[in-house]
């Protein structure tokens, strides 16, 4: 009984995240050391203008990020050194994709779309860490929205106009 209640509660919490107007991540949590499929949901443009570019900063600790191609959009990847060296399946990695840019398409203000990439959460990232994925949304006529606000200590994403999307790293489920 307790278990089914817990599952229902978890499902309810996930469902609660479904309808959103900002740029958010579909999956709100993932175990450390595993691949994470990041689905960025873009609900609207910038003050009524159509979105023409999405730039995603791959945060420290997300390794070997790979964007999913998207018809009508071209992809650009920026490589950079990580702040630290990470162990990925027994091999040290010190650099990788640090930014993914989708451009060339158009997404009207009253339309919805998803932009997807996949990355591995480094084993070194302890459960309980909240990872913020800053996104810059560029629109027609030079308009820009930056979903990059990472809450300061004692604040929540709610305290900001343009919070960065985020997910939580959790304990590996025991099987």
């Amino acid at each position, binding site marked *: 009984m307790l278990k089914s209640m817990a599952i*229902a509660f978890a499902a*309810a*919490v996930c469902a609660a995240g479904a309808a*959103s107007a900002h740029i958010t991540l579909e999956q709100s949590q993932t175990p450390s050391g595993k691949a994470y499929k990041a689905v960025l949901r873009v609900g609207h443009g910038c003050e009524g203008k159509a979105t023409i570019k999405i730039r995603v900063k791959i945060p420290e600790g997300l390794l070997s990020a790979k964007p999913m191609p998207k018809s009508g959009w071209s992809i650009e990847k920026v490589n950079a050194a990580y702040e630290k060296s990470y162990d990925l399946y027994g091999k040290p990695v010190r650099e990788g994709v640090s930014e993914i840019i989708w451009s060339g398409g158009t997404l009207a203000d009253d339309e919805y779309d998803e932009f997807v990439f996949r990355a591995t959460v480094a084993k070194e990232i302890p459960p309980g860490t909240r990872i913020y994925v*800053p996104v810059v949304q560029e629109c027609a006529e030079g308009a820009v929205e*930056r979903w990059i606000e990472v809450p300061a200590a004692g604040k929540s994403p*709610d305290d900001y106009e343009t919070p960065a999307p985020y997910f939580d790293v959790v304990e590996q489920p025991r099987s």
Partner: protein
Amino acid sequence: MTRRLQAALVAAIIAMGMLVPTGALAHAALKSSTPAAGETLDRLPDEIELHFNEPVRLIRATAIDRNGTNQALDADTSGADVRLRFSDPNIRGTVMVSYRVESEDGHPVGGTLVFDIGTPSAKPLVAVGEGSGLSLPIAIWLVHTATVLFLAFVVGGALFDRWLGARNSPTASAATVMLPGAALLASGLYLQGLDEQGSGLVFAGAAPLEIAVQGNAAICASLFFLSLLTIALPLARSKTTGRVLAVVALMLAASAFTFSGHCSAADPRWLARAAIFLHSATLLFWAGSLPSLWKLGRTSPNLRPLSSFSRMIPIPFLVMILAGIVLAIVELPALIQLLSSLYGRILTVKVVLVVCLCMVAVYNRFWLTAPTLAGNPVARERLRRSIVFEIFLAVAIIGTAGLWRFAGPGQVEAAEVSQVLSIHLHSEKAMAQLELGAEASGTRKVHVAIMGPDFDALDPRQVVLRLRNPGSAIEPIKFELTKAPEGGWEVEGCPVRDPKGWLADLEVLVDDFHAVHLEGGLSD
């Protein structure tokens, strides 16, 4: 539990989850407005329109005109559009429309729209609550003075009676001490809350008390209350414990004073606080002794307390005056300010009163006390009359000192900075120097210099300033700063005159993906 009940419970939890606000993910943003922010119009339009990016529910909307008058606005909301109407259509000058809406996700979002009708106000907007007149300061002063006098007569009087008084001197009942005491302390706190809230002398529910209990005034009032309670304890009636408790009560009351007033914040703090403690303890004792001495001269054939008092009073009196001098020096570094500032003038009046008091006290002690003790009825009558005069002087001194609340030494500087206001904000990653200068139109020009944490150069991509005034219900006004020709960032037309109550949030975009927030109050 049956399976069916379990299933129902699970379904209920899921349904609840659906109703949970969509969790910190979405909040409404203002897309556009008519008039636009900063626009100048010939006359007030019939309606102010706000367009959001998603449906909203209006929580409140108020307009503040150039006189600082706050009026609630009539509103119609349909989906993502909010239309606001003024009840008084004859508004001219700069207008601030402050709104607070709830988004679909249940998250409240606020903002302020500033525009001009006709020409911008010649006089900048006043913070709400300013100009509420003298009634609140007078009420605060009266209650404060009454509280200090009450404490002096109860606590100082008890100390006199227990240590020097006649054997069976009557003790005040618990009710006559606690009821007026609690009433005075509660109303003092309430008035303090009103003052912090920025409203005038009005009844504003429990809110002012809630505000006041968060500050030093609450510590002060609690210590006063404890002090009165110590005197009112039934235990305090017995001889030995009564003596001890009277001393405890005096110490509690005197330490309360170290939490109030400008002095307690002066540097060096330990010296200022020690001086306040000694000054107020001796003041309470001496002022509290006067009514008892007066009564003694009228009724008691036993004048022994008078001779004891006369023998020991020079010591506390000297302590009181020395501590007072220390405080005056700590507070008033430049003697120049003695007559140029309100603080200095109050000090001058107080010193004159204290000198008068010293003369009366010397006359009492060296010319009247000995003949009175010797049984001279003329001297005795004169002594009683001069004690009445001393009580008057004590009331005047306490009343004068109470005026300091409105004239801290800091206010000398405050008058100067009202022209150019300079604030330093910093965080771990950046710091900023904000300067708010006066403009001819009456608004302020904001100039911001931004540096890295070690004073190194920082060239941000974008700087946004948000100013809000929670006490006056003014939601954030957003200013996008532009690069100034002489360096730094600037914006004109900032409608803040009195910095009191305004909070600044400076958002600095360091690079494409990093923003730093620098926060602080304009009056800090």
